[in-house]
């Protein structure tokens, strides 16, 4: 099955790329979109088949010079392939409607979406260092071109593209360094060879390799403090590309960590996984805090991606830590939670980014303070975003709840088994997961309540129009997947267990089709029964209220109480900024918001106020503190180096001469 579906997926996406390149503007959008969706569907089939145990490998010696290309799919790669494919189906369907306007139906964006998808299907299927790095770089370049697709209309897009280009290539450099060093020490560049040689390497060398690849992959996954590109690039990309990046591409950073850390290096020291766990925890907290105070809908979602990837890394780190301390069952449980959260996050983040794109498409703004009142003008988008927000807020009826519950279970049960290290680490980790879950609820209540309900806060929101059918179809598919994952995670868990077994071998950590049982632990949960109970309770309560309200006969319609002062205006509503203000105040020390109050008095008297300007901005503090000084120093060094090149040819010839002579002298001394 895999041997047919995987080449079919690649073939269809490449065909879509060709269609995007050669077809005229008329049929281009639909043809490329449908072919890309087909490629995504084939990738889902291939991934699912690989997860069911249909391992597949191929060697194409002539494709790449020197090394040749090696491809292989195992259950772990299959999981990421299937997730990528599913996201691509939704994004491609959505893209057919979304790219109609704004110059997005040009050759470059239409070609690059399928190329991006092809690269993302190749990454989890790569089975040698060179193939992996090539696919990785292709993925980075294709996504970079897509991020800057709208660079003509907005200046921020260019800045975002620059940040992304630099960060992704720095990441590539460290991954390249790590994997090349690993391959050199192992005398093989195929993953099989690396796996076999890993045990023979010295511990320090393995640690260095892990450190390097972790830095690179963590940057791709948007883990703080390497996340700075993500909240810039994801909002500025076209929305279907944001969905692909935020729901599929960042996952591959986690894939890299799991593949290299667990599979190729075969586990490792406890400090590796402590590092992963700490980075994940920091990212989860920082991400959700920034999301909670963000006023831009897509920026909010981008920071929420940082948070969710942080939670996934908490699971991955905990799993590695348990594996080092010998707790196999717990290790498998933590990794199951992490991988299930990847699937769940991909589902709801696709839906949310696509819905945010519909809002942008319908109103022309992403500023939550200027939205509102979309319930009447965009009912379908509102309902779909509501589903996504529920899914993302880790409450029952949402799919995020299931994976976060599993994650918490694995962290809580760590106490009796592990040593001192786990006993000290796990309580803060539990606190981090709990706090981020709580803040996530506030964040999504804000995003949904302020963005879609109440009255429109601007004329742009007033004139909103509903998204066309293809966009709604893309969102509906994502919503359907989310709901299925939420009420019956038991359907995907057996397949997921095989993916987990690649990295953390052992018995299935979670069993049972309807009620989830944790192997070796005393935890059970049934998402379906919880959902049914909640549904019955809510419907019952509503019916009861209706009956109680209709029993009294005399009813009077009164106007809305507005303090007797006439109709209330939209300016009296909560805005995103005012909703988040208490949180911002509580976490003042972490967020360090910049507030600016400017009072201009009248010319006649200093006591009479003419106008008041109030500006508040929550910047990325990590970027401000960590990156700005480096950038300033680099700029200053560049300015200083300018003095070396004053345009005189004689001077340049002199440089060449002295360098050459110096080299010869150095060689004469050394040899």
């Amino acid at each position: 099955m895999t041997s047919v579906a995987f080449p079919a997926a690649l073939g269809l996406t490449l065909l879509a790329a060709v269609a995007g390149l050669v077809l005229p503007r008329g049929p281009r959008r639909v043809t490329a979109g449908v072919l890309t969706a087909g490629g995504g569907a084939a990738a889902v089939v291939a991934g699912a088949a690989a997860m069911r145990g249909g391992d597949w490998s191929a060697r194409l010696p002539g494709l790449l010079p020197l090394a040749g290309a090696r491809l292989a799919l195992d259950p772990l790669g299959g999981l990421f392939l299937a997730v990528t494919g599913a996201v691509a189906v939704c994004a491609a369907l959505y893209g057919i409607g979304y790219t109609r306007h704004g110059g997005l139906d040009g050759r470059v964006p239409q070609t690059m979406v399928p190329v991006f998808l092809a690269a993302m299907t190749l990454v989890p299927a790569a089975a040698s260092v060179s193939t992996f790095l090539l696919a990785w770089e292709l993925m980075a370049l294709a996504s970079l071109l897509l991020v800057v697709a709208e660079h003509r209309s907005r200046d921020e897009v260019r800045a975002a593209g620059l940040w992304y280009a630099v960060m992704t290539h720095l990441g590539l450099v460290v991954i390249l360094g790590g994997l090349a060093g690993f391959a050199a020490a192992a005398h093989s560049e195929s993953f099989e060879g690396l796996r076999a040689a890993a045990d023979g390497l010295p511990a320090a060398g393995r640690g260095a390799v892990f450190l390097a690849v972790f830095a690179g992959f963590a940057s791709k996954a948007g883990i703080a403090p390497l996340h700075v590109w993500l909240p810039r690039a994801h909002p500025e990309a076209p929305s279907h590309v944001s969905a692909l990046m935020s729901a599929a591409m960042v996952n591959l950073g986690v894939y890299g960590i799991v593949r290299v850390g667990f599979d190729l290096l075969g586990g490792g020291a406890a400090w590796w996984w402590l590092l992963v766990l700490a980075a994940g925890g920091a990212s989860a907290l920082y991400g959700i805090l920034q999301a909670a105070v963000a006023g831009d809908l897509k920026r909010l979602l981008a920071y929420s991606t940082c948070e969710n990837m942080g939670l996934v890394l908490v699971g991955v780190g905990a799993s590695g830590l348990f594996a080092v301390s010998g707790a196999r069952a717990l290790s498998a449980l933590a990794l199951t939670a992490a991988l299930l959260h990847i699937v769940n996050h991909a589902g709801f983040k696709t839906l949310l980014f696509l819905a945010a794109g519909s809002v942008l498409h319908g109103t022309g703004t992403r500023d939550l303070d200027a939205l509102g009142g979309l319930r009447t003008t965009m009912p379908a988008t509102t309902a779909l975003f509501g589903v996504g927000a529920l899914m993302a807020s880790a409450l029952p009826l949402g799919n995020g709840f299931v994976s976060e519950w599993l994650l918490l279970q694995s962290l809580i049960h760590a106490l009796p088994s592990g040593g001192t290290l786990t006993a000290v680490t796990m309580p803060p980790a539990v606190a981090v997961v709990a706090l981020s879950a709580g803040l996530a609820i506030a964040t999504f209540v804000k995003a949904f309540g302020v963005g879609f309900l109440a009255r429109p806060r601007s004329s742009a929101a007033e004139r909103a129009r509903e998204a066309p059918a293809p966009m709604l179809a893309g969102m509906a598919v994502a919503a359907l997947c989310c709901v299925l994952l939420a009420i019956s995670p038991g359907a995907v868990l057996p397949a997921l267990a095989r993916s987990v077994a690649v990295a953390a071998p052992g018995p299935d950590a979670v069993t049972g089709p309807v009620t989830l049982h944790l192997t070796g632990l005393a935890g059970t949960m049934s998402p379906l029964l919880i959902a049914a109970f909640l549904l019955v309770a809510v419907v019952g309560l509503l019916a009861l209220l209706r009956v109680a309200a209709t029993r009294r006969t005399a009813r009077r319609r009164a106007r809305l109480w507005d303090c007797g002062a006439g109709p209330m205006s939209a300016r009296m509503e909560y805005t995103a900024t005012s909703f988040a203000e208490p949180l911002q105040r509580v976490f003042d020390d972490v967020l360090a918001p910049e507030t600016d109050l400017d009072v201009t008095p009248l010319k006649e008297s200093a006591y009479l106020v003419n106008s008041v300007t109030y500006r508040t901005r929550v910047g990325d503090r990590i970027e401000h503190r960590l990156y700005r000084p480096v950038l300033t120093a680099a700029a200053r060094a560049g300015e200083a180096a300018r003095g070396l090149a004053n345009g005189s040819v004689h001077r340049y010839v002199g440089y060449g001469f002295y360098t050459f002579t110096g080299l010869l002298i150095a060689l004469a001394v050394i040899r």
Partner: protein
Amino acid sequence: MRDLFRKIRKTGRVAQDAPRAPEPVLPERARDLGGSVQIRHVDAGSCNGCEVEIASAFGPVYDAERYGARQVASPRHADALLVTGPVTRNMEMALRRTYEAVPEPKVVIALGDCARNCGVFAEAYGVVGAVGDVVPVDLEIPGCPPEPEAIVAALRGLTGR
């Protein structure tokens, strides 16, 4: 904080002894209200003399709350409207809307001479009329301004306690 508690202890009870309960003024309304009246106060254009006396009536000395009368912050929570002052042009619509916003059954109390018949502000250019000209009045408390005892007595007539 400690000073506050000490002061509370030292001051003791300042509330006046309750006089005998007066006869209910609106017996059928008092039955509906069951001894507890939530009151929304509307200043329709008062000189604030009546407000001072209302504050006094609900203060620690006269303590109208012990008889079941309570001031609330929204007409939606209220059983009764306590209106002071002549109704000015700017407050006419607001008073009508506040009256509409009070759930049935409701009572309107006109407090002070201005509320009853415009007092010294009768025929003034900014005055629409007495409270009774704008909304139906059920109970009047005379005085310019009425003494706290009179206000408490009228409210007790409404609560029946």
